C-alpha cells in the first residue's frame, strides 16, 4: 500500500513536470528566436549564437508599433469606461428589482451574450457607414454606452449574492436607488467590477475581428492585433523580428496580470461557478 502510494506520487509529479514543460516550451523558443540574428533565424539552430537584443528596437523602427499601442489603449480604455457606466446600472436593476419580465430580461442578456458578433455585422456596418464612422474605431467603442451583455451577466451573477436585507433596510430609511447603488452596492461589488473591467479591457486589447472590420486600410489607425497579423507578411523571412514583435505585444498583458493576479483568478472563477 505504501509503495503504491509512492508510485502514484511519482507519476503525478512526473506528469506535472511534463505538462509544465509543454506550457513553458513555446515561450522559451519564442524568446530564443526573438534574440537571434537575421542569418540564424533562417537556420535550424535553436540556441542563439549571439544575443541580438537590437531586434526589439528594430521592431519599433520598422513598424508603427507605438501608434498601434496608443490606438489599442484608447480603444480598450474608452470601451471599458463606457461599458462600466452602462452595465452597472443595468445589472443593478436586474438583480434588485422585482418586476414583471425580469426573467425575460435576463434571458435576453444571455441570448445577446451568446450571439456571434458576425450574425448582425452587415446591418450594423451599414449604419456606421452611413454615419461616416467606418475607418475608425468608434463603431467598436460607442456601442459600449448601451451596455455589454457579458458584463451585465457577470455583474448580475455577483450582485444577486448580496443579501436583500442590506438594500431593503436602506430603502426603509428613505435612500434613493442611486444612493443605494453608490454607497452600498458599489463598495461591496468591487471585486466583480474590477474583474469585469479587466475582462473588457483584455477583450478589446485582443480583439482582431472588430478592428479588421472597421479600422480601415491606413496603418495609422490600426490596433496591435491588426499590425501584428500583417507583420510577418511584410518581414517575411524574419521570424526573429516577428517573434520579437509577438513578445512586445504580449508583455504589457503579462505585466498587468502580475500586478492584478488576484482580481483575475477571482474573476475567472466568477465566470464558471453559477450555472
Amino acid at each position, binding site marked *: 500500500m505504501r509503495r503504491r502510494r509512492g508510485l502514484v506520487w511519482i507519476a*503525478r*509529479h512526473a*506528469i*506535472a513536470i511534463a505538462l*509544465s514543460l*509543454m*506550457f*513553458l516550451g*513555446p*515561450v522559451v*523558443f*519564442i524568446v530564443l*528566436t526573438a534574440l537571434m540574428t537575421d542569418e540564424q533565424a*533562417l537556420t535550424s539552430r535553436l540556441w542563439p549564437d549571439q544575443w541580438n537584443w537590437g531586434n526589439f528596437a528594430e521592431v519599433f523602427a520598422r513598424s508603427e508599433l507605438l501608434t498601434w499601442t496608443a490606438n489599442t489603449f484608447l480603444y480598450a480604455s474608452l470601451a471599458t469606461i463606457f461599458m462600466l457606466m452602462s*452595465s452597472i446600472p*443595468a445589472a*443593478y*436593476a*436586474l438583480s434588485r*428589482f*422585482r*418586476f*414583471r419580465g*425580469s*426573467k425575460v430580461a*435576463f*434571458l435576453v442578456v*444571455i441570448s445577446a451574450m*451568446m*450571439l*456571434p*458578433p*458576425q*450574425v*448582425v*455585422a*452587415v*446591418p*450594423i456596418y451599414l449604419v456606421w*457607414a452611413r454615419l461616416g464612422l467606418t475607418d475608425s474605431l468608434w463603431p467598436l467603442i460607442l456601442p459600449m*454606452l*448601451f451596455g455589454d451583455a457579458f458584463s451585465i451577466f457577470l455583474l448580475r451573477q455577483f450582485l444577486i449574492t448580496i443579501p436583500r436585507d442590506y438594500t431593503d433596510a436602506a430603502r426603509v430609511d428613505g435612500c434613493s*436607488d442611486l444612493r443605494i447603488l453608490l454607497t452600498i452596492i458599489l463598495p461591496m461589488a468591487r471585486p466583480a467590477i474590477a474583474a469585469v473591467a479587466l475582462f473588457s479591457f483584455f477583450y478589446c*486589447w485582443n480583439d482582431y*475581428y472588430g478592428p*479588421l*472590420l472597421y479600422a480601415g*486600410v491606413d496603418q495609422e489607425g490600426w490596433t496591435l*492585433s491588426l499590425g501584428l*497579423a*500583417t507583420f*510577418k*507578411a511584410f518581414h517575411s523571412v524574419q521570424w526573429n523580428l516577428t517573434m520579437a514583435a509577438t513578445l512586445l505585444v*504580449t508583455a504589457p498583458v*503579462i505585466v498587468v*496580470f502580475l500586478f492584478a493576479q488576484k482580481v483575475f483568478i477571482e474573476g475567472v472563477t466568477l*465566470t*464558471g*461557478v453559477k*450555472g
Partner: protein
Amino acid sequence: MAFTRREGVRALLWLSPWLVGIAIFFVYPLASTVYFSFHRYDLFTLEFIGLDNWRYAFSDPRLLQSGLNTLWLVVFMVPAQVLFALGVAQLLTKVKSGSSLLRTLFYLPSLVPTVAGTVAFVYLLNPATGPVNQVLSWIGITGPDWFGSAAWAKPSLTLLALWGAGNTVMIFLAALLDVPKHLYEAAAIDGAGAWRQFRDITLPVISPVLMFSAVTGVIYAVQYFTQAMIASRVASGATDSAGTSFTPGYPDGALLTLPQHLFQTGFRDWSMGLACVHALLLFAVSMVFTLVLLRQFSRAEAAS
C-alpha cells in the same frame, strides 16, 4: 412575491440605456438581416431577388466546407479542451508542492493575445525552422507540415487551444476544490477506489460547471474566427490589407470557418445579401446551443 408597479417603472428606467442598445444592436439588425437576405446589395444598389441568395448559398461548396470545418471544431476541439482542462485541474488538486507556481504557469498562456499566440504557434510548428519538428526529429519522428497541410491544420489549432486552456483549468479547479471533503472520506471508508470516487462523487457535483463550460465552448467554437484567419494568413504568407487578395482557409480551405466565409462574402466581396444568408445560418446554429444553455440557467435559477 408580489410585483409592484412602482418597482417595475424604476426597473424600466434603470434598464432603459440597455434596452435601447438591444433595440439598436440586436433586434433591428436581426430583422434587417432577414430583409437583406432576399436582396442583392453591394453598398450601392439594392435589388429584390427573392430566394436567389438562399439557392446560391446551398449550392456553394465553400459554404458546405466552412460549415463542416466549424462542425469539426465543435466535435473535436471543444471536447479535447474540456477533457484536457479537467485533467490538468484534477492533477492540480493532487500535487501539493509548488502548486501556486504550477497554477500561474498553466494560466499565463491563456492571457497571451490571440493574434500573438497564433503567430507564435505558426512559427513553432513551421516545418523548415520550427523548433517542434526539430525536437521531434531528435527522437526520430518526422513531424508533419502542421499549418501547411490540410489534414493537420485543425489539429494544430487544437494544440493552440489546449495551450490556452488555462482559463477553463482555473474554473474547473475552483469547482473541484468546492466538492465537500467528507464525501470522499465516506467513500474511501466504503472502499471506493480513485476512479469510482471520481465517477460517483466528483463528476455529479461539478457537472453543472462542466456543462456550462462545454456549452460556452461550443458557442465560441461556432464564432471561431481570429485564430483560423491568422494561421491561414501567416502560414500562406499573404496579406489582407484591402486591395490585395487573401482568401481565407489556407491550406485548401481546411481552416475556412463559417464566420470567416461570411466575413469574406460580405466585407471583401461586398455580396451583403448573400452574407446575410450565412449570418442567419450561423444564427440558427448558435441559437440551438444558446437554448441548451438557457434551459440550464432556468433550472439553476429554479433550484436556488
